[in-house]
Each structure stands twice: as structure tokens, then as C-alpha cells.
């Protein structure tokens, strides 16, 4: 049978358009206009990112040498390297991740595996997670000072009775402040990963006689590992870049030694950028150092973000979800 018996019904112009060809042309014009305007907005965003990154790479790549990465600041921070800031940043996010990861993962397990979907407690936890994510970072800084240093730290000092040790800015308080700030990041991405674990995996484990926790620990969490890692990496990346929460909780303008104890202060990359940019005695002379420090900070956060994006994309593909 030939196809011509059933003539194709490709969408033609509407009756209205047939009646008025200029209207059809007008429609096409509007389509182009809207695509153009929205496309330009998109292009603007791409341009912003390109200009910011381009400026920083061009201004900084010459400065970033091994001696810069491994050297100490010298001559009132107008020369030398940034090793103490890199070291402080790494130590800070390391302490932060130790604090935030177990709590965040277990809280996500609570939300997805243990809690009833709409109980008041679940709703309260979700409400808290959503709003914790919206608290301004400077308020976290105030909280770190008011709670960790003035309340907890002073409390410990009072109990020990041997002068001020914990009741002052220190790396442990800065790390705990950042941990609370990043709790939502870890919870949200862990929960997303838990959602991707098929129901059958849990049912299989339970049917074989595993307890609830054994199911979670031996079956569910291993499968959710990429999502947990994504959350961890994202929070490290954010932790490395946040300055406002550590302004009063432990970051130091300049230290001649590296932090070796939890109660030490520390130098940090983001704070170092702030200091070099605003407190330098000679801005022109410091500018190359400033660009170099910014570039190192950006490379660090982007490398982490990129890893997180790749891990998450693989996770989503496995779930068969669109990005």
C-alpha cells in the first residue's frame, strides 16, 4: 500500500495565519526577538565568568611558582610566598570535614531511611536544613564568637581553671563554625544519593535477616558513596572560600609559625586575599602577590568543584535521571 493514501498531516499554519500572512511574519519576528533577548542574557552571564576568570589567570599565573607556594610571607607581606595560608586552609577544611561528614550523613540517613515522611520531627529537620542554608555567613561568624568562643570555650577554661586557652579565637572553633555552615550541603547531596539506591537493595538485605542499621551500613551507604563524596567535596570547596565566618573565630592576619594545636590561630587563603587587598601598606607592590593568591584559591575551589560535578554526573547517569 502506498503512503499517499494517508496524506501526511504536518502542522500547517493556523487558520488565522492563513487569513493574515503579515501576522505570521510578525510571529516569526517576535520569536527571533525573544530568543535573542534571552540568549543575550545568557551570553552576559558567560561573559561575566570569562572576564573574572580571565583577569585573574592573566594577572596571577606568573606569580604562582614553587617558591611562591612553598615560601613564607616576607617583608611585611609585600614579598615571599603563601605557604602558611595554604597549610592553614588545608588544616581548617580537614578539621571541618571530620566534624561535618558523620553528622551530615547520619542526618540524611535519618531523613531518608528512618523518619516517617511527614512527621513533625521530619518537617522540623527539613525546615532547619533549608533555613540553615540561608543564614548569612557573617551571622555564622557572630555565632562562632558568641557560642563556641564566649560560651563553650570560656566554659572549658572556667572548668580547667588555668587561664584563657579555649576562650579565644582558634582553628577548632573556626572549623566547627564552618562545619555547621556546611551541614546542609552534606545533608542535601547525601540524601540525593540515598534516593538513587533502589528499593530492592534494601528489601533484599532485610529479607535476608539484616537489621535496619546493617542494611544501611552494609548495603545502602556503600551504594550512596559517590553522593556522600560529592557533598564532602562541595563542602570542602565552600569551606576553603568562606571568609566571613572565620574573621572572628580564628583567622590570623600574620603568624610566624604554623598551627600545631587545636587552640592555635591560623592563616587562611581567603582571609589572606582580604588582608592583601585591603590592608597592604603598598597596594601596587603587593598586587602580583594578591593576584597569585587569588589564582591559587580559585584553582583549589574549582578543582574541588569540578571533581564534585564529575562524581555527581556519574551518579545521576546511573540513576537514569536528566541533569
Amino acid at each position, binding site marked *: 500500500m502506498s503512503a499517499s493514501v494517508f496524506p501526511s498531516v504536518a502542522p500547517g499554519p493556523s487558520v488565522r495565519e492563513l487569513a493574515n500572512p503579515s501576522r505570521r511574519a510578525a510571529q516569526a519576528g517576535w520569536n527571533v526577538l525573544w530568543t535573542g*533577548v534571552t540568549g543575550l542574557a545568557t551570553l552576559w*552571564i558567560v561573559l561575566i565568568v570569562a572576564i573574572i576568570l580571565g583577569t585573574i589567570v592573566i594577572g596571577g599565573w606568573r606569580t604562582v611558582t614553587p617558591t611562591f607556594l612553598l615560601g613564607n610571607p616576607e617583608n611585611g607581606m609585600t614579598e615571599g610566598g603563601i605557604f602558611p595560608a595554604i597549610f592553614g586552609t588545608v588544616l581548617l577544611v580537614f578539621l571541618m570535614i571530620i566534624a561535618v561528614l558523620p553528622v551530615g550523613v547520619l542526618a540524611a540517613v535519618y531523613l531518608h531511611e528512618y523518619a516517617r515522611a511527614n512527621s513533625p520531627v521530619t518537617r522540623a529537620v527539613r525546615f532547619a536544613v533549608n533555613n540553615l542554608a540561608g543564614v548569612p555567613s557573617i551571622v555564622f561568624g557572630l555565632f562562632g564568637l558568641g557560642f563556641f568562643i564566649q560560651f563553650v570555650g570560656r566554659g572549658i577554661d572556667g572548668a580547667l581553671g588555668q587561664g584563657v586557652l579555649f576562650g579565644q579565637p582558634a582553628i577548632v572553633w573556626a572549623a566547627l563554625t564552618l562545619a555547621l555552615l556546611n551541614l546542609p550541603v552534606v545533608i542535601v547531596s547525601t540524601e540525593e544519593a540515598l534516593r538513587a539506591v533502589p528499593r530492592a537493595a534494601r528489601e533484599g538485605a532485610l529479607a535476608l535477616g539484616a537489621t535496619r542499621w546493617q542494611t544501611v551500613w552494609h548495603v545502602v551507604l556503600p551504594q550512596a558513596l559517590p553522593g556522600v563524596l560529592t557533598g564532602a567535596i562541595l563542602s570542602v570547596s565552600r569551606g576553603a572560600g568562606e571568609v566571613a565566618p572565620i574573621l572572628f573565630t580564628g583567622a590570623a592576619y600574620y603568624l610566624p609559625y604554623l598551627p600545631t594545636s587545636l587552640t592555635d590561630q591560623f592563616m587562611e587563603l581567603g582571609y589572606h586575599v582580604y588582608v592583601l587587598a*585591603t590592608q597592604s601598606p603598598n597596594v601596587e607592590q603587593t598586587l602580583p602577590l594578591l593576584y597569585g593568591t587569588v589564582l591559587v584559591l580559585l584553582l583549589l575551589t574549582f578543582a574541588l568543584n569540578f571533581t564534585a560535578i564529575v562524581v555527581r554526573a556519574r551518579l545521576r547517569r546511573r540513576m537514569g535521571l536528566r541533569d
Partner: protein
Amino acid sequence: MPAPPLLARSIDHGRRRVDRLAELAIAASALVTVTGIVLIFVFVFREALPVLFDRETRLEANLGMFFSPGSWQPVSDHPKYSFIPLLIGSLKATLIAVITAVPVAVLAALYTAEFAPRAIRELLKPVVEMLAGIPSVVLGFFALIVLATALQAITGSPTRLNAFNAGLALGFSIIPVVYSVSEDALRAVPSSYREASLALGASAWQTAVRVTLPAAWAGIFAAVMLGVGRAVGETMIVLMASGNAAITSWSAFDSIRTMSATIAAELAEVVVGSAHYSTLFFIGSLLFAITFVLNVAAGLMVERMRRRLAGA
């Protein structure tokens, strides 16, 4: 039925104890989130209490002074604590950020959700994530060193660091959140809406602008509120790029000092427990309250929109 062998019973006993311990740890972790937000409120507000209730502190700084016109000069022989210049500063920076960033972000979201070819859509996502991943201190650095110079060359403004410079950079920092929440909202509109519109003979742009956009309105409004919340609370950008002068002026080309930047710039220097110290915590409590209300409202709007679209 025979009893299970002794060994199995003790294994079972141990398993159950581990289970109970795990359950406790899990519940405790979930409660950390709730406790966290309560503690933040309690401890920020607690340090602010003296300006409300302590007689001696109130002689120097009190609510009446905060909200009456005047100047912000906390470090002088006769300290003055009027919030008005700071409120104007925050308002100006936020307004400029919203005006410059929201149209761009919403239009780009509309482009991605309605017009863009797949390849461009795939490309854009990492770009926006990159922008979101730039630490705010880096945006502050960019605004301070690069943007301010460029803007001064264009506008010829006598003050290099001003509200416009800070607001524009602040806008960069809220584009990702406004964009991604708007795009989520546009994508949540069921395709049956679009199909019905197209089937009735509407063109692509008519469908996008008159059907999809209105259907996603609540979500986009929520995106804007979240953006405003970010802009009000953002600290490092305004601290570095705004000039930090507490001036009562409505010009976009005067320097400003925002509430957030005031805390960041002054808290490290104050005496713990002084009137100035309590005042800064009071500003922090205000910031917390403003952003909290915006976030809750935005959450409710997204929730409502989702329910309405699911019912449709």
C-alpha cells in the same frame, strides 16, 4: 519450636544493641540541624540583649537611637549609633544587585528552559556552577581592583568605591541562585501546558512568555526572594568594594557601609561586652531575622507552586 542455639542468641543480642546505638546516633545527628538553627538565634541574640535590657548599656546605645536619623560613629568620644546610614547602605547595594542581576538571571533561565538548543543548555550549567563556586572574597577582590577602575573610567564618578560598584558585584554573586531556582520553576511546569498552547496555534515565544512564565511565577518570585536574602547578608563583597563610608545619601555613586560589612569591619576591634559589641550583635540579629523571613517565605511559595502544578 526449639530455642535458637546460645551463640546465635548472643549474636542477635549484640546486633540489636548496635542497632539501637546507631539509631540514637542518627536521631542525634538529625537534631543537630534543629539545635543548630535554634542555637544560632539564641546566641547571636543573647549577646545583643544588653542594648534592650541593660540599663548602663542603654544609656549609650538603645533602640530609639538605632532607628532615628543620625550618623554611625561608634568609635568616638561621643559615640553615635544610628542604623539609618547602614540600612540605606544595605538597601542601596541590594537594590542595585537585584536590578542588575534578576532580569539577566530570569531571562537566561527562560532561554535555557524554553529556547536553547540542548548543546548550549549542557554548556551553561557548568558555567553557572563556576560562577556559584567563585568565593565571595574573590568577587570582592575583582570588584575592588578591576571593576571599580573600569566603572570609574566609564561613569567618571569621583568616588571609586561606591554603591554601584559593590551592588554590581553583589549581583554577580546572586545570579546563580536566582538562575537555578527560576530554571527549576520553569522546568516544573508540566509539558502538557506547553503542548496545549502550541496545539492552539501559539508560537514558541507566546508559549514561553504567556504560558510557561506565568505558570512558574511563584517559583521565580521565590528565586528573587532568595537572591535578596543572599544580597542582604553577603559580607566580603561589600566590605571590600563599597568604600565603607556610612553616609546618608541616596546616590548610587556615593560610598556606602552595609550592615554586614559593619559587623565584619568593627567586631574584631571592640571590647567584649561593651555597648558597641552588643550593638553589632543586634545588627547580626536583624540580618538573621530578615534572611530567615525571606527564606521561609520563599520556601512556602515554592511548595505552593509545586502543589498547584501537581494538582493540575
